[in-house]
């Protein structure tokens, strides 16, 4: 347990250091791009992409943990799935703030029904419903089973959203990495990768902390139940 605490602290420090260095690179080292490349607001990109990828990873982790729960029926997988879904939602909301600010500055509107934006909004709504479903079922193992099944279905929107900009032609949302006529100046990749690693470390650290909190709450509830039942 002591070792795990050290890993969490180490990852948190690593995340902080990497993200601060990436901020230095983004705002001090890299010049402001011309207006045709969305100018100053292009700097959102360096954090927008990693946050988006991490939200996808978090929801996919929920899928994996949910499958594990259904196979093994061990509540620790349900706790992990729940915690990862919560982090996915947090990253998703942050992503929406970044995205909407940027598309207001670059496209001229706060929101538009582009396939990527639409499928991503559906993803967030599905995971909103995931938490609603959890709160509706109190009996612990039934809650876990329902949540696992629904979590798997909800996470199936991750590949749909990811591929929406690639399979549908003539979309508004750009594909920067790995598409024709796209890409970055080599120096920009450094800051992008630094923020990518930084957010990954942050995600793992937050997941470990969140799982610990959930487990503590579970033990606390068990103790409470025992006291209540013992009193009768």
């Amino acid at each position, binding site marked *: 347990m002591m070792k795990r605490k050290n890993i969490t602290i180490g990852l948190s420090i690593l995340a902080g250091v990497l993200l601060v260095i990436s901020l230095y690179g983004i705002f001090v080292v*890299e*010049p*402001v*791009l*011309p*207006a*045709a*490349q*969305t*100018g*100053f607001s*292009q700097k959102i*990109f360096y954090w927008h992409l990693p946050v988006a990828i991490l939200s996808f990873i978090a929801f996919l982790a929920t899928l994996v943990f949910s499958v594990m729960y*259904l196979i093994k029926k061990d509540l620790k997988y349900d706790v992990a799935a729940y915690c990862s879904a919560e982090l996915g939602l947090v990253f998703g909301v942050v992503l929406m703030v970044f995205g909407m600010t940027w598309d207001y*500055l*670059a*496209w*001229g*509107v706060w929101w*538009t029904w*582009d*396939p990527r934006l639409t499928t991503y909004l559906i993803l967030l709504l599905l995971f909103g419903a995931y938490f609603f479903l959890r709160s509706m079922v109190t*009996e*612990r*193992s*039934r809650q876990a*089973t329902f949540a696992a*099944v629904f979590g798997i*279905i909800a996470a*199936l929107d991750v590949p749909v959203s990811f591929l929406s900009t690639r*399979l*549908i*032609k*003539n*979309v*508004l949302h*750009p*594909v*920067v990495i790995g*598409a024709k*006529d*796209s*890409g*970055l*100046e080599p*120096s*920009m990749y450094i800051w992008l990768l630094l923020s990518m690693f930084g957010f990954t470390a942050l995600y793992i650290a937050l997941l470990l902390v969140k799982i610990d909190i959930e487990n503590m709450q579970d033990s606390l509830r068990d103790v409470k139940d025992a006291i209540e039942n013992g009193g009768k």
Partner: protein
Amino acid sequence: MPAAYHTLQGRHFFLPTQEVISLEKRSKNRLVVVTVIILGLLAILLYSATRGGNNLSYFKTVTEINNDSTLIGKSVRVGGKVIPKTIVKSGTKATFKITDSKNQITVTYSGALPATFADNIQVIAEGTYKKKGLVEAESLVTKCPSKYENQPIVTK
């Protein structure tokens, strides 16, 4: 046959152990069947969406609009590059031409132009296809590039 209390999905049963094992098997089989059905539906959806030469698209190109006279009078979403020096502003109304480097089409738009709107910028206009070569836009969005390059210009 040995019998005992068993917990299955949160409910307690007093059952022979053999019975419990078969119940657990049944619930696992059900899971596999449901998974296969969902994956099958997704595969059909993906197949039907990408079939027919990938005709899934968010906006139409200028050429696609120009070659399809059945679209006249209907609402369309067309994307293209603003041809330099074709922007004419009168009052709140702006008229300009966009191209996909093969064909061109005139777009009229009354409303606030996006801050990034300029010559050679990719735009997507949503509105009514009035007649051949004219789209009356109700909304206008500028498309941002997917390539970022350093240039020795540092201006805000």
